[in-house]
């Protein structure tokens, strides 16, 4: 059970949050111009890394804001929390 430092509310218990999968997968601007394979890449393919992973989280039972997290999936250490739209940190 993590403690997550919501960029808008501060430290809160994990039970207030929902995980939203891998971060920085941008929805294509013109999906109709993509091939089936390209669209499938966007739609289905996720990395599931052992190590530092960038992921989306939502303070669902709090401010309802989405934000990004860099988390080491091997030991659940949260390396960094940053706002939506900000660039992923270098590893």
């Amino acid at each position, binding site marked *: 059970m993590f403690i997550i430092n919501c960029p808008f509310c501060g430290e809160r218990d994990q039970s207030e949050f929902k995980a939203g999968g891998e971060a920085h997968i941008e*929805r294509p601007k*013109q999906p109709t111009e993509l091939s089936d394979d390209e*669209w499938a890449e966007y739609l289905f393919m996720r990395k599931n890394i052992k190590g530092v992973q960038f992921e*989306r989280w*939502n303070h669902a039972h709090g401010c309802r804001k989405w934000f990004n997290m860099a988390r080491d999936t091997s*030991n*659940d250490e949260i390396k960094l929390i940053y706002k*939506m739209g900000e660039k992923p940190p270098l590893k």
Partner: protein
Amino acid sequence: MSDNLRVKGSKFIDETTKISFKFNGKIYYGFKGDTLASALMANDVHLVGRSFKYHRPRGIMTAGSEEPNAIVQVNDNTAYTEPNVRATEIEIHEGLEASSQNCWPSVGFDIGGINNILSPFLPAGFYYKTFMWPASSWEKYEHFIRHSAGLGKSPKVADPDIYDHRYIHCDVLVIGAGISGIMAAKTAAQSNLKTILLDEKTEIGGTTIYQNSDNFKINNKNSSDWLYNEINELKKLDNLEIKTRTSVAAYHGYNYLLARENLTDHLSKKEKQNKIRQRLLKIRAKKVIVATGSLERPLIFDNNDRPGIMLSSAIKKYADYYGVICGKKNVFFTNNDSAYESAISLSKKEIKVQAIIDIREKSESSIIKEAESLGIKIYWSHTVVNTHGYKKLKEISVMELSKDGLSVIGSKININCDCLGIAGGWTPAVHLFTQSGGKLKFRDEDQVFIPNKNSSKQISIGSCNGDFELDKIIKNSSNSLKNFLDIGKTDYENLSVVTSKETNKKNIWLLPSDKVIGKTKPFVDYQNDVTAKDIKLALREGFRSIEHVKRYTTTGMGTDQGKLGNMHALGIIADTTGVKMGEVGTTTFRPPYTPLTFGTIVGRNVGEYFDIFRRTPMNDWHVKNKAKFENVGQWKRAWYYPRYNETMHEAVQRESVAARYSAGILDASTLGKIDIQGSDSSEFLNRVYTNAWSKLGIGKCRYGLMLNEDGMVYDDGVTTKLNENHYIMTTTTGGAANVMVKLEDYLQTEWPELDVYLTSVTDHFATASICGPNSKKILNKLIPDLDLSDENFPHMSFKKTRIGKIKCRVMRISFTGELSYEINVQANYGKSLWEQCIKAGKEFNITPYGTETMHLLRAEKGFIIVGQDTDGTITPIDLQMHWIVSKKKLDFIGKRSLYRSDTMREDRKQLVGLVTDNPKEVLEEGAQIVSELNQNPVQMLGHVTSSYFSPNLNKSIALAVVKGGKTMIGKKLFIPMEDRTINVMVTDPVFLDKENKKLNA
């Protein structure tokens, strides 16, 4: 009780308070402070239970939570009954009733004992191997196996006790109140840190508190006296909370721990009345100090499980702490010095110690010399090869060990004894450390796993960290505390410590015997009856990983999770396969450390508080009018309103006829409602719905279908344009919360440039939907000055008006195909609105209808319910709803996926109607549909999604999804049921009023 089984003068037992209790129906007496185990032994009761598989007689082995054998049923045949409770943890109290488990008809004569004689035929994996063929007979076998197996009986009625949860936040949590835990708690609390100290036992002080021996001294005091002073100092500190009878069950990441605090189990029936029984503590600690100590290991030899064979340290605790003599003629069997401590302690209390069998060749420590000087005979380089006595140990057989320790030599010596103390060294209790994600390392010199790396802010100190000697414990704990708490010094530097043991130990995981292994029963896991033989068999059959061996043999899978024997299982695997212990690894330590009651886990969330219910403002009316309710998500929705003795079918038929021919009223308050505002609202709706929204006029309503990005139908509902840049969206009842989350997600992450604000207003409005040909007349009575003509108030439009003084929003929209109006008012006027509607509709026999009738009415019209007729694999094209999918819009959520090769297949499952050849026959929802009955294997074409008897059409109707269904109109299909086959014909999904005449009736 037999007085000669008590040693007088234990300060932990109140000999002035006599307590009676029942065990297996017989009344016994003990003292306040006794556990069930100590009181039974004081009464010379050693046969406590029967083993799980072979039903062998078993007694008490330990004095703590690691007990594998003495597990009992408490308060049998009452609502308070609890199975699998360790007799070593039950504090006796007036009214306690306990009984043996796993035996029939009694623990003394147990029919299952025949399994012991049959045991050569019951090897590891026996059940898997034997009862799997023929597979069809498993159900029969299972009945008998389940009957004869199992530990204890589960309660048959609801638990009447009260349980509780509590959150605790602290700077430092110390787990275990032995000597190192007390040092840690005192140091932390003195450093101004909010500290919690937990211990599973009744008293704090661990094993040191009853040590009382000149062999262990701190600053020239007996270690127990020294610790006693420390505890007194500790109790004066005010930023420290001490909780005893509190067992940490789980240690999760980020220092989040769960502990069970036992509040009343030790009290008499009268004292515990109306009190909280157990409390689950949810602890978030900034720092955690693990001081969980260590567990003594047994030794593995033939017949090492008889009542009277106990851990050496347990015999010592029963004598020193409880003042109870476990046996009158004691023998100890050891591979290290610690058995000598027990032997000396007994001798000094004038309890007879016959001999010590030591597998080592020699040891020179002072404690051994002391034992010799007390006249105890020591058999060096000897091992126990067998034991005798069925219900109580009578005799042991001893032989000399060969030089390499692999075999026995010479002749057998038999020693008469009624208690054998075994001492196989110590296993650090690293369970909690590993639960938290910590990694272990193996220390070869004394064959223990000790903490290595961990990620959270924690340390392990004392014997759980592999420090077993008093001087080391104090020195290393003091140093660790200084670093961990970041303080300059502790009270424990430069103490003079006397400890007289040496650490020399000889480890043999499976002791040799004069018999071949196949003829022996050296138990590794006592509770699950797993022997060394079973583990070797598993290895012979090709199992290598410890996790596989565990599952095949069930070693370590009992309620004690193999606290005693797991190390030996690993050792035997390592020895047999020639792999190093450190490489074999350990099995995963899983929470809880000791079993938890379900009551503790759920706390107050029982009965009506188990899950949250949401009720509409009209709920009281529904209850008063005897509605039956159904759960829709968290909502309690009126399902149907039976009159007199109507069945559900009769009520639904009546309600649906009334709604079609005169007037019906539905509580639609549960529909999800999202208020959408902002200058980009129309554009937003364009992107989230499949159809176009740009041209919708103010005051108009439109039905929308929402997809997932994969093209599958996600939600639907009517959205109304209240004003320029202001919409109200309705969603399905069950989908409301998820739709809100999804829309917010897109707004915040993909389209932050859009000026749109979403607010969930589901609970802010109450909604009554009146439908049927007379609904207009009823609405006219309610709002006389509103022009209800089709010109002023057409289908799919909205009016903002008032009923009396109550502001309301009225939408003319329909989910039944009838003319209908949805009236929305501020939620707290909901019941008043409903009652006014009923009053105004009385002359038209307005009939309240529930969700079942609503489902029937919409099915007659072929309207889908998302989640019933769709299941996350259905596109709007599959639903034959092309009309709602905009071709002009460049993009909306899910659009691209509608053009994937898979979603464009012609043979996808498509929504169709079904009518049965026999119009009275109603299909079962979920029934499979086939076109050929004699195929092998038969090809499933699809399934029935909705099915009803329609009173308005006087026949059975159904909706279904069928492969290639849209090209099958008029085709005959079959629905095979268990006892018959039903013939059906594929039809259009719209059964009634295809021209929508009724909407404007």
